[in-house]
């Protein structure tokens, strides 16, 4: 059995993400230029070792904020400062190669759905982030195997591409991939949405471990039990009125 968590860090509690004045309005050109304001003047600081749950009704902008942290969505204004190595990178203005470097070394992300790549076996899907970090093939695969075991993915599935897996199996492969490489920041978008109770508990345990190790976690957890179990505080979001 592997331990997911790297050794505890001495720098628990220092800021890892600083969001300042973030704004995002979607303009739907294919639908008559409709404007949907989602974030306005959003500010948030996340520290090493804590888990912040984004909280609010559907349409409040939880996913938009999480995706903006990952630089998947491009805000119209504001900054997402991320501690990367010894410096800070603004994910809003950084050039693409710097954003990719932050994603590779500093910021992990578990999306809601696994984006399957044709022909790539589950074991390699999980090992890939470690290999991209420079870890050796054998070590990366060992760690991937350990995570898949913990998340109850039967060994006979490891050499198969996950395209044919069930929704729950795909999600667990996705979670394993997100936790494979130890990174100081982890973003989680509904990591337990299609899991049964036992597997949900497995994911909760993984989150608790990385927090202990000093990882700053930001997540969306619709399941109230999971949210209560993992989050240290809630960050409330409210839908913006159109007329605002």
């Amino acid at each position, binding site marked *: 059995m592997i331990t997911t968590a790297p050794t505890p860090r001495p720098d628990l509690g220092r800021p890892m993400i600083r969001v300042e004045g973030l704004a995002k309005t979607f303009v739907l050109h294919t639908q008559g230029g409709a404007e949907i304001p989602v974030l306005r003047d959003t500010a948030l600081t996340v520290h090493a070792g804590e888990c912040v749950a984004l909280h609010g009704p559907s349409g409040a902008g939880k996913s938009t904020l999480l995706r903006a942290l990952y630089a998947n969505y491009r805000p119209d204004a504001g900054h997402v400062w991320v501690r990367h190595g010894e410096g800070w990178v603004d994910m809003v203005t950084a050039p693409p190669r710097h954003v990719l470097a932050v994603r590779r070394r500093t910021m992990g992300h578990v999306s809601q759905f696994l984006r399957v790549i044709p022909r790539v076996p589950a074991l390699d899907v999980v090992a890939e982030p470690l290999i*991209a970090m420079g870890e050796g093939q054998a070590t990366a695969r060992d760690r991937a195997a350990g995570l898949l075991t913990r998340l109850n993915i039967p060994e006979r599935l490891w050499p198969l591409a996950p395209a044919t897996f069930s929704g729950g199996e795909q999600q667990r492969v996705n979670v394993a991939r997100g936790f494979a490489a130890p990174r100081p920041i982890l973003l989680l978008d509904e990591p337990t949405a299609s899991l049964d109770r036992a597997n949900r508990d497995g994911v909760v345990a993984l989150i608790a471990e990385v927090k202990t190790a000093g990882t700053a976690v930001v997540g969306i957890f619709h399941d109230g039990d999971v949210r209560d179990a993992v989050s240290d505080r809630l960050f409330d979001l409210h839908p913006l009125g159109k007329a605002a």
Partner: protein
Amino acid sequence: MTALCAARLDAGAAGDDIPLLRADGVTKWYGARLGCAGVTFDLYPGEVLGVVGESGSGKSTLLGVLSGRMPPDAGGVHYRMGGGADLTDIHALPEGRRRLLMRTDWGVVHQNPRDGLRMGVSAGANIGERPMAVGARHYGTLRGQAGDWLSRVEIDADRIDDRPSGFSGGMQQRLQIARVLVNGPRLVFMDEPTGGLDVSVQARLLDLLRDLVARLGLAAVIVTHDLAVARLLAHRLMVMKDGRAVEQGLTDQVLDDPRHPYTQLLVSSVLQA
């Protein structure tokens, strides 16, 4: 949004802030008709740039100018030669030096493998051509290298003496890729590398390309009209319409949060399989 094609961009931090290739206002006219206009970007070592847009948007024209096969009418294409920090205007190079560059540092993968292969000679000879052009002469070495590359692109080594005319479309395309990559280029241009192939054959080729590009740390410009191909292979995307770059960004940004009306139309028009 997975950055699955993550090459090790930050493997060597030194020199990373100097682009490998710089397009500066690249403009090309065909008489009174515009090919492409004012296309500007920097490409860094190990980066894969996808160029997407519909037929006639100027993608292939741009690729022709970038890869030195067509002179621009305005603007320039600059390349970092050797290990230096200086950028050289490739269209100002003497013809001979530009040709040498194209045989050593660069590679071009054509959509139709027949445009990139010599159909009348064996698979082994196709792979050996570029090494020979830069001085390799030892038959055993050339043959060993050809065999190695055939296996890397998943072609049986016992096909080494067969002519590509007898290969399937997918095999021909993989052979073309081996022929281009054998000399270890730093920059590869690909024009619809998976176009014209069956979907299952495409998947295999994409997987292979993804792996080779990451493993070799190649920089590449890939023209495709297929957004799924772009998502799998490219770190960054440039969207072209009517000869102009209307939007640029990280691949997942452009596809998941498209801003320009044309990009929104393009992304929303894709059929979900």
